[in-house]
C-alpha cells in the first residue's frame, strides 16, 4: 500500500471525526454560497457563459503550441524575458539564478499555487534569502509552517483566536479577536517589506497571446504592490494558462470571481505587458516569466482528460464538494486540493501513488455542476479509477467481479445465493472480510429481510 494513501486515510479519518471543525468550515462557506448565488443571478444566462468560458479554454489548449509561441513573441516584444522549465527543479534553478543575478537580499511573494507546486520557498530559504508571503492567508500559513488548506482560501480553517496568538508570538502584537484589527496588523507589518524587497514573485492567472500580457487576479492589492515596488518582477505560470485574446478574458475574469468567491469581479485584475517603459515613473526594471511544464504535457496527451487543463483555479469545486467539506484540505497532501486536485495529481505526480484520491468521491457530480469551464470532473475521477485498475489490476476486485458476473447472469443461482447470504449475514458481519469490515466500522448493517425483493414483488399481486 502506498505511503501517500496511508497518510491520506489517517488524516482524512481524523479530520472527518472532528465535528466542531466541520461545522466551522461549513459556516465559513455559508457566506460564499449566498454571495455566489446573488452574483450568478446577475448573469443573463450563466449556462451560456459557461459554454463560452469552456470554449475559450478549449480553443487555446487544443492549439497550445501555436498559442504559446504567439504569446511568447509578443511578451518578449514588450521587453519581458521568457524562461522555459521542464520540471520543478529546473524552474527553481531558473528563479534562484535570476535572484542571484539581481544581487537581491529580500524577496516578496504574492499568492501563487504554482510556486507551492515547485516548493519554491524551501529552495529560497535554503539559499539564504528571506522570503515573505504577502497574501494575508498565505502569510498566516507561512507563520504556521503549514501548507495552504484551500488553494483560494488558504487559512479558512484557522480561527481568529489562533491567528491572534500566532501574531503575538511572531510579531509581538497585542492579542485581539477582531478580524479587522488582525488584518491591519498584517498590513502594517508587510508594508515596509514591500518597499524594501529587491525581487517580487507572482503567479499568473492568464497569459494573453494577442497582446503578450499576463493577467493577475487578487483581492488584497498585494500582487499589485509586488509587481510595482521591487526592481525585478518574476512571474511563474503553468503553460496551460494561455488564452487567445482579451475578448476571451472579458468572459473569464467575471466568471472566475463569481464561481470562486461570489464576487462580480475580483478586486484587482491586472494586466502586465513588460517592465517599466520609457515615460513611466515606476515599475520593475526587469520582467521575467517562467513557463512551467512539470507533467502538464502528460495530461495534455490524454485527450479524455485534457479538459482538466482548462481549470482556472477558481476553487468552486472544492467549495461544493462533500468530501472536501468533511476531510478538509490538508488531508489531501497535495498542492491542489478537492476534486480538481484528485483529478490532476495522479497525472502530475504519478497514478500509482495518487489514484486513491479518485476513490475519495461520492460521485455526486456537484463539482462538475459548479465548474465555470465545464470540466467533467466526476467522470475523470472514474477515468482515473479505471486507468489505475488497468495499470495494476487488483486481483480481489477481478475475482469478485467475475464471480458476481457469473452469479447475476444466472437467475436461479442468484436467488439461491441471495438466500444463503441473507441467512449467513449475522455471521458474516463478525468475520473480518476485505472491504466489508472497513465499511461496517462506521456503519450499521440493517438486518436482512426474510424475503428477497423478487419474492416480495411476486406476492404483492405484481407477479
Amino acid at each position, binding site marked *: 500500500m502506498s505511503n501517500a494513501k496511508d497518510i491520506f486515510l489517517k488524516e482524512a479519518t481524523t479530520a472527518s471525526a472532528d465535528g466542531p471543525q466541520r461545522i466551522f468550515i461549513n459556516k465559513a462557506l455559508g*457566506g460564499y454560497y449566498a454571495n455566489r448565488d446573488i452574483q450568478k443571478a*446577475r*448573469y*443573463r*444566462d450563466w*449556462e*451560456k*457563459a459557461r459554454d*463560452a468560458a469552456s*470554449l475559450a479554454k*478549449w480553443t487555446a489548449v*487544443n492549439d497550445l*503550441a501555436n498559442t504559446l*509561441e504567439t504569446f511568447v513573441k509578443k511578451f518578449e516584444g514588450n521587453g519581458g524575458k521568457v524562461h*522555459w522549465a521542464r520540471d520543478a527543479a529546473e524552474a527553481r534553478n531558473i528563479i534562484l539564478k535570476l535572484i542571484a543575478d539581481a544581487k537581491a537580499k529580500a524577496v516578496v511573494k504574492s499568492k501563487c499555487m504554482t510556486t507551492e507546486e515547485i516548493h519554491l520557498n524551501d529552495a529560497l530559504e535554503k539559499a539564504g534569502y528571506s522570503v515573505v508571503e*504577502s497574501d*494575508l492567508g498565505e502569510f498566516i500559513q507561512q507563520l504556521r509552517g503549514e501548507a495552504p488548506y484551500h488553494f483560494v*482560501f*488558504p487559512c479558512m480553517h*484557522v480561527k*481568529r483566536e489562533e491567528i491572534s496568538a500566532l501574531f503575538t508570538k511572531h510579531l509581538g502584537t497585542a492579542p485581539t479577536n477582531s*478580524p479587522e484589527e488582525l*488584518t*491591519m496588523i498584517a*498590513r502594517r507589518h508587510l*508594508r515596509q517589506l514591500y*518597499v524594501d524587497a529587491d525581487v517580487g514573485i507572482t503567479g499568473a492567472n492568464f497569459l494573453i497571446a494577442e*497582446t503578450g*500580457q499576463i493577467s493577475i487576479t487578487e*483581492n*488584497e*492589492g*498585494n500582487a*499589485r*504592490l509586488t509587481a*510595482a*515596488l521591487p526592481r525585478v518582477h518574476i512571474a511563474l505560470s503553468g*503553460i496551460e494558462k494561455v488564452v487567445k485574446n*482579451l475578448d476571451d478574458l*472579458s*468572459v473569464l475574469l467575471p466568471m472566475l470571481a463569481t464561481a470562486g468567491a461570489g464576487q*462580480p*469581479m*475580483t*478586486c*484587482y485584475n*491586472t*494586466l*502586465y505587458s*513588460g*517592465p517599466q517603459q520609457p*515615460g*513611466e*515613473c515606476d*515599475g520593475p526594471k526587469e520582467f521575467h516569466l517562467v513557463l512551467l*511544464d512539470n507533467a502538464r*504535457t502528460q495530461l495534455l*496527451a490524454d485527450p*479524455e482528460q485534457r*479538459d482538466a487543463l482548462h481549470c482556472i483555479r477558481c476553487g468552486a469545486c472544492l467549495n461544493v464538494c462533500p468530501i472536501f467539506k468533511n476531510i478538509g484540505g490538508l488531508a489531501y497532501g497535495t498542492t491542489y486540493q478537492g476534486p480538481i486536485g484528485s483529478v490532476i495529481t495522479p497525472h502530475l505526480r504519478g497514478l500509482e501513488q495518487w489514484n486513491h484520491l479518485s476513490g475519495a468521491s461520492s460521485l455526486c457530480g456537484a463539482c462538475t455542476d459548479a465548474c465555470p469551464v465545464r470540466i467533467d470532473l466526476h467522470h475523470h475521477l472514474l477515468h482515473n479509477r479505471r486507468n489505475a485498475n488497468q495499470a495494476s489490476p487488483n486481483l480481489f476486485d477481478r475475482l469478485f467481479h467475475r464471480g458476481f458476473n457469473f452469479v447475476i447472469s444466472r437467475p436461479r443461482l442468484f436467488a439461491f445465493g441471495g438466500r444463503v447470504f441473507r441467512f449467513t449475514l449475522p455471521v458474516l458481519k463478525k468475520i473480518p472480510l476485505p472491504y466489508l469490515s472497513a465499511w461496517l466500522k462506521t456503519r450499521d448493517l440493517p438486518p436482512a429481510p426474510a424475503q428477497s425483493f423478487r419474492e416480495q414483488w411476486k406476492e404483492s399481486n405484481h407477479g
Partner: protein
Amino acid sequence: MANAREEILGRIREALKVTAPKPHFKSESHGATHSINAKPWLPDGGETESARLELLSENLAKLKANLIRVPNAAAANQALAQISQTKNWKKVAYHSHPLVSPAAEALPCEKWEVGASLDKQKLEGCDAGVTSCEALVSQLGSILVSSESSGGRSLSILPHVHVVIATTDQVVADLETCFKQVLEKHRSKLPSMLSFITGPSRTGDIERILVLGAHGPKELYVILIG
C-alpha cells in the same frame, strides 16, 4: 543541454496529435454580436447612457466604493477639497492630468506631483493618491487604471485612500467594449500595467469575514463629472 523551449513545444505537438472533441453545447452561436450589449449572457451593462450610469452607481455602492457625482470640474475640485478636509489629509500624491492637477493643487495640505520617477518611500508616507483613469465599466463597477493614466503602478495602490476623477463619457457598458477601446487607444504600445479596480482592497482570509483595506487602499472615491 537540450533546449527546454524546444523540448516542451515538442511534447505539446506530440500530445496534440490526438485531438480532443470540441465541446458541444445545447445553446448555439457564441460569436460576438457587436451590439452595444455584446455577450448577452454576461451581467447587463446597460443599453443607454442613463442605464449605464445607474448600474455603475449601484455596483460601486455594493462594492463599498464612494461615488460622488458633480456637474463640472469646479465642483470636482470642491469635492476633493471636502474629502481632504474631513479626512484631515497631511500629504497627497497625484499625477499630472487636466482633471486631476487643478483639483490637487488647490488642496490646503502638502501636495506632491508624481513626476518622471517616483520615490516609493515618500509615497508610502502619503495619505492619499489622486489619479484619473482609462474607463469605468458599468457592468461590474470596475475602474480601469493604467501606468499611463494613473501615475505609474504604485500611486493607485500604495496610499491608504485612492481618489479617481473621471467624466461620464468614460463610462463603458462592459468588459468586452472596454478591451476594444483600450486596444484601439493604445494601438502602438500598451501601458506596461492595466488594472481593473473593483472596489477598495479587501480580504476574507480570516474566517471568511470581509475586511476592507488588506494591502491596497481602504477607501476608494470616484468623483464623476457630468
